């Protein structure tokens, strides 16, 4: 079952769409099921001022991607680099067991994004 937060994230899809003035962006893909998450961050003075996502995939990936953008907003890049699966899971809340792979994809895209450097 989906928890209340996951339900909200899937229904409202907050922070959806690309970010024209992003400073960092990355894409992660699950080659088996085809889920794709793109993450866009605008980081200024080492703080995430804005975060957006695009997602093609299952509801678990959608909840994870939207939840990730909420999690990183207004956080420092250092804090964001330290986020792990458990942090994201704690924010997104309950997902069906077979949908948890979306969380892993979201953490992967965050790490990739912060590793890309300013463009």
């Amino acid at each position, binding site marked *: 079952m989906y928890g209340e937060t996951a339900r909200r994230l899937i229904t409202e*899809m907050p922070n959806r769409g690309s970010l024209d003035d992003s400073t960092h962006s990355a894409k992660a893909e699950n080659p088996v099921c085809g889920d794709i998450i793109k993450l866009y961050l605008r980081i200024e003075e080492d703080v995430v001022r804005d975060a957006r996502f*695009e997602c093609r995939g299952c*509801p678990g990936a959608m909840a994870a991607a939207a939840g990730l953008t909420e999690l990183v907003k207004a956080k420092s890049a250092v804090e964001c680099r330290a986020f792990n699966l458990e942090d994201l899971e704690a924010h997104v809340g309950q997902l069906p067991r077979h949908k948890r792979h979306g969380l892993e994809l979201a953490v992967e895209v965050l790490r990739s994004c912060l590793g890309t450097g300013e463009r």
Partner: protein
Amino acid sequence: MHPVYLDNNATTPVDPEVYEAMTPFLREEFGNASSAHEKGQRARKAVEEARSQVAGLLGCGDRELLFTSGGTEADNLAVWGVAMRYRDRGTHIVTSKIEHPAVLRTCEVLENDGFQVTYLDPGPDGIVSPDDVEQATREDTILVSVMYVNNETGTVQPLPEIVAVARKKGALFHTDAVQAAGKIPVNVKQLGVDLLSISAHKLHGPKGVGALFVKDGVEVVPLMLGGSHERGRRGGTENVPGIVGIGRTCSIANRRLDEFKSAIGGLRDRLEEGILESVPGTHVNGSRARRAPHVTNISFDDVGGETLLVALDFQGVAVSTGAACAAGSISLSHVLSAMSIPEDRIRGAIRFSLGRFTIDDDIDYVLRILPDLVKRAREAAPETAD
């Protein structure tokens, strides 16, 4: 929130009239229909009345019907039972790729037992061509099994034509009519079939009971071994409440067949046209001309069907999808795949299936909330996969 159930091809709520008819047989009339005493004989009478009611819907003789535990057992018994009984005449079976797993899995098991099975592709409209059936049917073909109404798209197969070509080659013909019975006219004589499966729970009856029509003169080797129940074709004490339930279910469906077509077909058309008009980038899967009145299968461009399903579910609307992702692996509808529908469209496919209790308000509600949900999902979709 307005709860809307548009997944009636998965299962249906039990009609209160059916429930009322069944209840005494779960309580005071608990007799075994094989018992000689009066309680048993009252149960026997109820079973035989139910048989007549089912026969009335299908246009067959009472003795040509046997009760099963559902559509799956009926399909299993038809395909396996015929294969075992007539394997001395031939070991070839023809079926289609859009059959229910109850038929497909049975065919796979038979392949491991020395049978050869030809699985026919439908056209892009979901229709199996009688010409293809004719070409595939050989001298040693003992059975052709093609479903009447597809559960995912609602497409209606041209059965009389397909039956005729099978018959010409001397093969028996079985159809899975689980999604046809009570939705469109199903008359075994007009269709010319030898075996036909139905299930109660797809038709506002109880789960756990179905029926198989076996034409007089056709034999099946039983799957269930035990007593001489069902004229030796299915051992096991009869599920009297369930059988009473399927009987009443078929009797109601027969009475309301015309109404189902006009009322439910009208609601389906309004839903479908409303979606096509209000949501750009939508496509109906399967033939719209040859279709049962209660189903529409629609693909939404650039939307994950499963995400849309879950978003609809959170708004109180139950539907089903053409693709499911579980633990990182994707499972695409075998029906839509066989119709050569591109993978992206299969991923964005939603099946809306209506039932006798679907009302105008249900359609209004879906048409009101769906466009925004699709818009939101598209805003979240990457413009390109790169």
